[in-house]
């Protein structure tokens, strides 16, 4: 295994003048320019958010959603704070409260996820003992005009439908 010696370019006088190189480069860029000007449809740019990427696998982590209980379709979350504890971005705000309907003892009164702070690591999903939070919504583009648009509250998180087979919380 010897060292491969590559011949260095630019030895001759003609090459040292760089005229050929300069005009060659200009030709290349002009070719791109004219081609794109005459037919813009070849440009690979996606007009996000009107056009959305199509090549994302379902395993990709999307926007969070809160699952429901299979028995009565109520919120599965018991406000145990495991997701908030695991969250490295501290983007989950929970305020717990007593649950009055007899299904369980505890539920979140406020459950906000600040998607601007979220790093989409999925630790909250891993931490949840009740399978109450998932990232299988299939929403990979979060779009909004204001900062407030990116804070998803309990109602919004509950209303998002999942794309996986199991719609309800699998916790027993």
């Amino acid at each position, binding site marked *: 295994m010897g060292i491969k010696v590559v011949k260095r370019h630019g030895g001759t006088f003609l090459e040292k003048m760089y005229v050929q190189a300069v005009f060659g*480069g200009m030709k290349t860029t002009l070719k791109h*320019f004219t081609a*794109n000007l005459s037919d813009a449809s070849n440009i690979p740019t996606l*007009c996000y958010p009107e056009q959305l990427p199509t090549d994302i696998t379902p395993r990709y982590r999307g926007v969070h959603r809160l699952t429901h209980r299979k028995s009565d379709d109520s919120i599965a979350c018991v406000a145990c704070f495991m997701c908030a504890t695991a969250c490295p971005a501290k983007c989950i705000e929970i305020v717990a409260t007593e649950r009055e309907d007899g299904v369980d003892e505890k539920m979140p009164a406020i459950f906000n996820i600040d998607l601007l702070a979220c790093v989409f690591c999925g630790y909250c999903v891993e931490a949840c003992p009740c399978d109450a939070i998932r990232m299988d919504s299939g929403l990979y583009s979060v779009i909004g005009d204001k900062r407030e648009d990116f804070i998803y509250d309990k109602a919004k998180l509950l209303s998002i439908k999942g794309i996986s087979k199991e719609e309800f919380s699998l916790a027993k």
Partner: protein
Amino acid sequence: MSTFLILLPLILTLLFSLATVPILVWMERRVAALIQDRLGPNRCNVNGIRLGGIVQSVADMMKLVFKEEFLPSHIKNKFYYLAAPSIAFMSSFLTFMVIPYADNVTINEQTFTMQALPTDLGVLWFLAFAGLGVYGIILGGWASHNKYAILGSMRATAQVISYEVAMGLSLVSMLITYGTISLNEMVTYQSQSFFIFPAWGIILQPLAAIIFIVTAFAETNRAPFDAAEGESEIVAGYHTEYGAMKFGLFFVAEYIAMAASGALIVTLFLGGYQLPYLSTQDLINHFELVLWLIITFAAVTSLLFLAWVKKHNILVMNGLNETKIYTTVIVGFTLFAIIVMSYYALGFGNASTVGVMLLQFAVFTVKLFFLHFLFIWVRWTLPRFRYDQTQKLGWNILLPLSLVNIFITAIVVVGVNYGN
């Protein structure tokens, strides 16, 4: 009245140079995008109207204007800090003042020069104020009290000072060729023919043209000579510490300087406002024929443009239907222009002098924008020179070349005149 006539061209030139800036910025971004297989800015809109992205430049300018004027606390010399962008802006604007946009117009026995300042200093004026622009850079860098800024300003200053020499010398050979220093006379000279070619500077003096264009790139700190604001090593160079409209002035100054250099190159080497082979007198004499040609040209171009717009304006914003409005406006405007031109072309009225003036102005503008395209094209093709390479190119190659060029030109000119 006379004061008004003196001020009017000044104000018109100021407006022209200021109006080119957003268009230049837009061109810069869209051309760069197309060269790099992207789309460029196409979102910013006023009720759905985007004008192909020009609205984005206007929005950027408005942002700069309305941003908070921020003065860093470490600035000790506030006066110099604030004066620097104004100097840069003023001097680059003043260089624009001597460019002739059209041939002299004679109306009612009165001759109007189509220059903002009716001076015959021409090229010298340009050199003088391009040189003064250095103070903006020096002061900006020095008053910023920042290592990046001072490094950038030293690079820019050294580069401008050294390339001024080669620029001046390449100009000398053009002066010898044209035998005049007045820009207007130079343009008139270029309406002649040289064998079968138009006697444009770039054909008579290709070497001087190349040297001048290269030095013009360096004088305006454009790529590939923009080591003065090499982002990878010195952040933004001499305007690192500037924000809001103070930065905006530097920014506008850079683009106006670029526009002025482009205009000078057009005037010196590309026949200025002249159409090839056609002198002003020819145009005036055959004005009706010219009008018919223009009418045909306008109709074909607008149809082609409309077809292009229809094909490519796919992304629809909220608000008005953009394509429809463009179609209406362009068709209406073209029809109106054709009707007006036909009125004169059919011989109902005589507006040949003004018409030729407008035509020449249009020709000049088209050439100017081609030059801007060249500037942008080069910027997005060539990599940045290292600082020592810049200096080496200036002193070791361009300076001797331009000296040699002067000698050859002088010998040829003397020889030709001797023969006569």
